[in-house]
């Protein structure tokens, strides 16, 4: 891949292209990683819903990594490492936004409701 980058030179910013093999590998992995979560939910193969949710989330994370590597050609050297740095920064923000929102709003839901209930029972 590095030889290819040199051939392209500065013209295309050194962005790496994939190979036929790479795209096919990514595609086959994606099909498998998509099919299993759908199968799990459609058939209810795991009795516990929470366990199913954790498993399909794990499959999603793995599939996102597969797409990043095989389709978006992410690696630590493209664009001199700046694209990876931008990705890591974005991921940190995404994690803060998602976990922060869910955590805070869950506690608001859980703590405010009984309060209202108590108020109604007051003399």
């Amino acid at each position, binding site marked *: 891949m590095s030889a290819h980058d040199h051939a392209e030179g500065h*013209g295309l910013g050194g962005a790496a*292209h994939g190979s*036929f093999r790479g*795209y096919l590998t990514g595609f086959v992995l994606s099909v498998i990683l998509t099919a299993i979560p*759908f199968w799990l939910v459609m058939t209810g193969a795991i009795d516990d819903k929470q366990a199913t949710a954790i498993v399909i989330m794990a499959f*999603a994370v793995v599939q*996102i990594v597969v797409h990043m590597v095989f389709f978006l050609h992410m690696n630590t050297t493209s664009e001199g490492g700046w694209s990876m740095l931008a990705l890591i920064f974005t991921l940190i923000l*995404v994690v803060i936004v998602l976990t922060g929102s869910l955590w805070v709003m869950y506690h608001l839901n859980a703590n405010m409701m009984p309060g209202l209930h108590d108020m109604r029972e007051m003399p």
Partner: protein
Amino acid sequence: MTATTAGTGPVFHLEEEHAHAEGGSTMLGFWLYLMSDCLIFAMLFAAYGVLGGNYAAGPAPKDLFDLDLVAVNTAMLLFSSITYGFAMLTMDKGRVAATQAWLAVTGLFGLAFLSIELYEFAHMIHEGATPQRSAFLSSFFTLVGTHGLHVTFGTVWLVTLMVQVARFGLIEANRRRLMCLSMFWHFLDVVWIGVFTFVYLMGMLR
């Protein structure tokens, strides 16, 4: 700049010595745009995560979602990703007709995805599950609709580039544009992984 006083007089050197080709930083810039787009989707996912359980005594995911349809939709987007990959590979070899053919196939898969999604939305709205019905449906339509809008604009962009390639061939500028669209298209597939997992599959588990 550095100045040397030895000799006849000060000699100045410009620090930027090598010229950058036009568009050399486009890919990084476009990647940064995609990352900001990723933040938009993160906000919408967070909104759905918070509001997704508020049905307002209206329909729940189980009453609305058809997983078979979602599976077909996911397949369409996945096929369009691999066909776009093939378009990029044929572009590298400089084969204009083959590139155009793969781009056309990609566009058709994109249109199939949009048609199925619109059918799903129309079906839900027909059943009274409109965006106004509950917070769950508002956040659902915003999140999935924003993704659909991205795919729509991606398809418009794809057709535009096909016209460009037909007129000017696989020139440097067109290659660069096709690579940007490639990143955009694959990025949308990545977002869709989040959508089908977090919205559809987890929705059926609620």
